[in-house]
């Protein structure tokens, strides 16, 4: 079976609730069959609205959504055949786990013995065999979550939507559930659209991530590309930690550009700047800067250590560098020989290709 490239397709979708503000602006998004795609963004960025339009609980103000090549705007939610996991699980509290899972099968008039098989399979997938007769209230948060996942998959939908499903769980449980959902996705090959505001969740689970802000997809790419090569300063700042320098392009030539700061000049990789004189924000990941670099690097500057914070496996060092007092460095604890003490002057270096000159915003 060949995988469809645009199994889900958002075409020029606009959405407004009050006729004044667009919460989703001209959205174009293709989701391939079997893909795990995450919509990531701060709250109010329009990601949940997109999910609700896909599920059928909101209608697009303009544009059309296609599922498997069919326009679905006029199809009511219960006929779309999309599985959904809700933020607060939305398990039916008056039904047992078995009845919860049987609900989608019963409304589809699937014979009981076949339904029982499907329910067994779904429960074993989330390792909850033996819980069928429990009420949702008797389950822990993690177990409820798994029931919700099992329920969204039990009727074999081709597409499953998950709306911040792990938001209510504690950190350890959340991490183990992330792997569990990822493995389920890999084993049954269902298409998953996942909404979260937790970037580490998005980075660990997804094939691709769509970063939403202000009703628009800022960047749509694989997790590593998103982290390593953000295309604008919103993405750079939203994903991971980030050091920034505000300045003005003073020279640009091919792969490199010079950026003039208030009292220094650095060499950067021009991403969204084109010409001399443009304002820019240079973004640099903390782990890309080294202390006392031995290799030849094209940016080497002196800074003063302002703060040292011990984090166990690494130490965070805050340095006043080139007029930026918030410059963060992560130093692995193995390099204990380094002279990291409060108030010391140290040399910091980085390669110009890691310093991405983005839009000033």
């Amino acid at each position: 079976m060949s995988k469809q490239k645009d199994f889900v397709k958002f075409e020029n979708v606009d959405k407004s609730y009050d006729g004044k503000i667009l919460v989703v602006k001209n959205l174009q998004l293709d989701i391939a069959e079997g893909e795990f795609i995450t919509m990531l963004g701060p709250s109010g960025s329009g990601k949940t609205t997109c999910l609700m339009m896909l599920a059928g609980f909101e209608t697009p103000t303009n544009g059309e959504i296609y599922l498997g090549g069919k326009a679905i705007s006029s199809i009511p939610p219960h006929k779309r055949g999309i599985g959904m996991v809700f933020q607060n699980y939305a398990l039916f509290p008056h039904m047992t786990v078995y009845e919860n899972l049987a609900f989608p099968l019963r409304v589809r008039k699937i014979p009981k013995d076949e339904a029982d098989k499907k329910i067994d399979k779904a429960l074993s997938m989330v390792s909850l065999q033996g819980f069928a007769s429990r009420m949702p209230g008797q389950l822990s948060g993690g177990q409820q979550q798994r029931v919700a996942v099992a329920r969204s998959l039990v009727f074999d939908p081709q597409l499953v939507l998950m709306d911040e499903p792990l938001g209510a769980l504690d950190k350890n449980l959340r991490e183990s559930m992330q792997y569990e959902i990822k493995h389920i996705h890999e084993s049954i090959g269902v298409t998953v659209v996942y909404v979260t505001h937790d970037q580490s969740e998005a980075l660990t689970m997804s094939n691709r991530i769509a970063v939403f802000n202000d009703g628009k997809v800022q960047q749509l790419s694989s997790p590593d590309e998103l982290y390593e090569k953000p295309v604008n300063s919103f993405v750079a700042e939203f994903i991971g930690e980030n050091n920034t320098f505000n300045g003005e392009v003073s020279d640009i030539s091919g792969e490199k550009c010079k950026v003039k700061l208030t009292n220094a000049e650095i060499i950067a990789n021009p991403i969204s700047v084109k010409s001399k004189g443009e304002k820019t924000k240079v973004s640099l990941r903390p782990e890309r800067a080294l202390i006392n670099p031995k290799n030849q690097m094209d940016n080497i500057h002196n800074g003063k250590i302002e703060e040292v914070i011990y984090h166990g496996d690494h130490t965070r060092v805050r340095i006043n560098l080139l007029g930026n007092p918030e410059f963060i460095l992560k130093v692995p604890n193995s390099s204990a020989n380094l002279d990291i003490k409060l108030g010391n002057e140290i040399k910091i270096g980085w390669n110009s290709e890691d310093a991405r000159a983005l839009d000033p915003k």
Partner: protein
Amino acid sequence: MSSETKQILTTDGIPLEVSLKKAERKNKVKAFLLVAPLLFFLIITYVFPIGDMLFRSVDDKMVTQMLPKTFKAMENWDGQELPEEEVFAAFHEDFIKLVEDKREGKLSTQLNYTKNGFKSIIKKLRRKSKSFEEGNYKEQIMSVHKRWADVEYWRAIQRRAPEFTGQKYLKGMDMYVNEEGKIVSVEEDRRIHRVLWLRTLEIAFFVTVFCFLMAYPIAHLLATLPMKYSNLLMICVLLPFWTSLLVRTASWMILLQQQGIVNDFFVGIGLVADDNRPEMMYNKTGSYVAMTQILLPFMVLPLYSVMKTISPSLMRAGKSLGGTPFVAFWKVYFPLTIPGIGAGCLLVFILAIGYYITPALVGGASGTLISNQIAFHMKSTLDWSFASAMGLMLLSGVLVIYWLYNKIVGIDNIKLG
């Protein structure tokens, strides 16, 4: 595992339990003092009156105490033939004493409840008794009126001998103990109470149904509309609460009367002829309409408070899993509202079963309820024991409904807010 528990001591050597009790005693006293005023209030206004009512409904000491010697003498009487002279003598003695205390009127009222016809013959006996000669009272009393020579009347007096009686309860069910001591129903055309009980149940039941049918969508809207609309709607629901019950009922009288606004409207749109305006007041219709409107908030509020807690994502989940909107409603939403339905129905039904002012004003003859009858006996006939008996029958009816509800739905399931 050993079952014996070792006594744990505090560092001072006092058993832990003792010192815990000591530490908590102050809080317990404080808590009790806070509850005390309400407890006191409840005992005075609730436990005591209900106890008094219960007592009053079965209390029949009055006659027992008015005719002590008579009843003593009657102990040996088999009730077949007219009693012996000693009974008449004892009765005469008791009666003279009552006349001296001017209490013979009360006796006549009481005896008249048991058998009609006592009032006049007691009056006559009082007049004639002044000129009675000593001895042979049987002859003399029997000559006052022929009823005094009727054994039925003496049996009626004997029936009042016990200190306690369940007769008022029988009367409330249109039954009585006949001359042979059997419990029988009164003649068909005098059965007023059974009709009233049935009508009360019927009206309370239908008012509950109407309230439920109207309140469910309102409560659902209230729970799901955005705040600014739901607040407005909530005010509309609560507005009747801020108006006096009497005013509300009176406004229904204005609306429903034959020359009233509703009738004018019906005539105006040609639904009914001007000379054939339907009567919507002083009958059951009036009671239904006014009571439904007045009791509606008691249904809306419990439903609303339950619906408010039902997450909208549950309905969405039901739909996304493939249920049509109706299936999602019926299988998911409706079962979750049952605690509110139970609370609302129970509340409205219990309020309706004892409703008084509204049926009295708009119910007319065919729309009055048992509570109106109770009030009638409290105020007009002054037969308080009968009123108490009916009040207690009403109360036990409510308790039965409560018990049934608990059996069927479970009282833990009730949710008022």
